[in-house]
């Protein structure tokens, strides 16, 4: 009984894994993946996959048809770029001047991090210096005056 249950469980997991793999490579999935890379021309910062507009629906239909006709994702991407320009790609291609858009955020993060580290170190150093100043012996003139005033107060 236990063996049958185990066999059924394994078979179930295998079927689920196969179905998931089949769906991941399905035409619909590929269409959506490609559509997610393209900018919807009539929307404000929405991808062709996310937009409910008629234009985006037609573009998804065209991607689906092209995939069905055996065109590769790269060919389809090039087709849209040849019609709309690089503007249609939500992520700029990694070449030439476009590298600036890819690298600048990392440079900014590193630069900002560096400034924060330097500022923190400086403030720690300043704090240590002021603590060191506090532990130095006081001027004897002030000590004697303080003692005298305290005694006066106690009286």
């Amino acid at each position: 009984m236990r063996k049958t249950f185990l066999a059924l469980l394994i078979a179930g997991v295998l079927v689920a894994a196969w179905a998931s793999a089949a769906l991941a490579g399905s035409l619909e999935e590929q269409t959506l993946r490609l559509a997610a890379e393209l900018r919807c021309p009539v929307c404000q910062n929405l991808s062709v996959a996310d937009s409910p507009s008629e234009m985006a629906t037609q573009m998804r239909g065209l991607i689906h048809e092209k995939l069905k006709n055996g065109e590769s994702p790269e060919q389809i991407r090039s087709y849209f770029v040849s019609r709309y320009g690089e503007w249609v790609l939500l992520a700029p291609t990694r070449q030439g001047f476009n590298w600036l858009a890819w690298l600048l955020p990392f440079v900014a993060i590193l630069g900002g991090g560096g400034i924060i580290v330097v500022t923190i170190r400086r403030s720690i150093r300043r704090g240590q210096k002021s603590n060191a100043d506090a532990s130095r012996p006081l001027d004897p003139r002030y000590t004697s005056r303080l003692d005298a005033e305290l005694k006066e107060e106690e009286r």
Partner: protein
Amino acid sequence: MATWKKLSLLLSIIPILLLLAYGFKTNPREVPSPLVGRQAPPFAMTMFDGSSNSLEALRGKPVVLNFWASWCFPACYEEAPYLEAAWQAYRDRGLIVIGVDIQDRDADAKAFIERFKLSFPNAPDPQGKITIDYGVYGVPETFFIKRDGTIHYKHVGALDAKVLKAKIDEML
């Protein structure tokens, strides 16, 4: 040290200001078409009157290809009379004007054609294939195609008589 700090702050602000100035100067809706100067994508269409037409059949003639929709108000309504006037004025010299109605209902499109008494051929683009093939991202958009089949000029927005005349004269 303080002067150096002030100077570096100023120097880091300048490129940001320049970038902003450039961004404010450009129109985000105006995207240059990569199709200008290249061969116009071929198309074949069934017109509203049931006849067929294709760019291949029109080779050797200058073509004004206008993308419009009945819901595109006021721009498409403003330019429609000018397109009809251009068609009437230049058809004898070989000019072809074609309207492509996009993302529309047939009844509304036919009412639009009737309203402006458009006599040049018009066709729907139900699947949007011609629209996407020409990289259209809004209506109205108009392509001026030369006799050799290359795209001479793309106009975004409503056309007026002056632009139409200038661009048609350049093609004839």
